[in-house]
């Protein structure tokens, strides 16, 4: 299976014929394709990965691409970078339907749906300025993943919206 197949025939009914005419994002040789991000949430995924205007990585972003499964979806392709498990777990919080495709020499060598973890460690910062994790202590943040947000396992603060405002990468 080549990378064009994985990004254009996503298994949710999108035909490769249609996609071939509407291909908007170029293939990558090595790296990661994050597919089936809900429409409009690609910037959140980029924020989690620490990719902003100062990046020198080769990144392609498709937004609001028609999708049978999601209606509209976003796609992010990053050349030369394979995501860590920690990064994938946090992506699951903003893009629960996403699939992660690892590409080597244009081939998809691994394809996984994201799975919501029960906790995330060391990626988010607690918005409670009085939480012990914001002090100069040798401790990583830990958040319990709830159905509709996350919760600091130290002070109990719940974050429901704008999760990407609290990413500490």
């Amino acid at each position, binding site marked *: 299976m080549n990378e064009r197949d994985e990004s254009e025939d996503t298994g949710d009914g999108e035909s490769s014929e249609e996609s071939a005419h509407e291909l908007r994002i170029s293939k990558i040789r090595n790296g990661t394709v994050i597919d089936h991000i809900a429409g409009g949430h690609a910037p959140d995924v980029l924020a989690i990965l620490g990719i902003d205007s100062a990046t020198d990585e080769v990144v392609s972003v498709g937004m609001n691409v028609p999708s049978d499964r999601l209606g509209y979806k976003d796609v992010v392709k990053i050349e030369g970078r394979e995501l860590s498990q920690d990064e994938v777990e946090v992506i699951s919080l903003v893009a629960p339907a996403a699939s992660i495709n690892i590409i080597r020499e244009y081939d998809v060598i691994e394809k996984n749906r994201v799975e919501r973890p029960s906790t995330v460690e060391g990626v988010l910062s607690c918005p*409670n300025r*009085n*939480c*012990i*994790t914001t*002090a*100069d*202590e*040798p*401790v990583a943040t830990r958040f319990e993943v709830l159905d509709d947000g996350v*919760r*600091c*396992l*130290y*002070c*109990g*603060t*719940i974050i429901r919206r704008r999760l990407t405002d609290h990413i500490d990468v």
Partner: protein
Amino acid sequence: MTHDHVISAKSLSRADIETVLDRAAEIDRSPPDRDRHADDLLALCFFEPSTRTHMSFETAIKRLGGDALDMGPVESSSATKGESLADTVRVVEGYADALVLRHPSEGAAQMASEFVDIPLINAGDGAGQHPTQTLLDLYTMREAAGDLADLTVGIMGDLKYGRTVHSLAYALTKFDARQHFVSPESLSLPRSVRYDLHESGARLKEHTDLDAVIEELDVLYVTRIQRERFPDENEYRQIAGEYRIDAATLEDAREECVVMHPLPRVDEIAPDVDATQHAHYFEQAHNAVPVRMALLDLLLSEDDR
């Protein structure tokens, strides 16, 4: 006890709580031998001021025959040299058999417990939790009401920042109490506590006016509204005045309604309440000793660990 650390009332089971309260009642009836814990040292690390909690823990360990190691005021501790809390508790662990920690940051006790193997007791972490206050609150309620089953409890004052309130609400939920929370909207329960209470099936209602519920209450638990929570002095005075009770307020209460307060009070309970049959807050403060003796006895007794 199933927990070596006592961090949050949320993690204490109903059975854990009843074990401590039963032991406290035994101690009240028949004080243990003065050498029961003669070799035990209790470290007191208070990074915030305290009178009742500090003194009652010290009394409790001494009445059990042990001794207290007091870190002293935070101004004279290594914290002023920039030592982390994690390092402080790891050092103190080598000196003592159990550690009592009060700290201004939420989550401090949880974090500190991850660095030590001796039992760590949370004596207040910022606006978070104060589980041993809850144990003595429940003991006082049980002694006054006879039973913790089927209680209707009103909790009034600063519900947002009041750590005693948060711990008490979690514990009362385990006893299926009906809980009425009375506060100005700006000081209502924090979202995280409300979330937990709903998740655990708490029977709770929130009010801005005590008059709406006072006739129903078996217990009225009053807490202090702190001046520093308000940017404006006038606003503080106006709101604090609305959540003040006096003997006249209690004329509408049930005769056996128990009025409690974790103390210190400022003026939220008028002195004329002290002479009524409702006043139980000094007895509540005194109950800190047998309850903390019971907790320390359970934590420090090898057979129970």
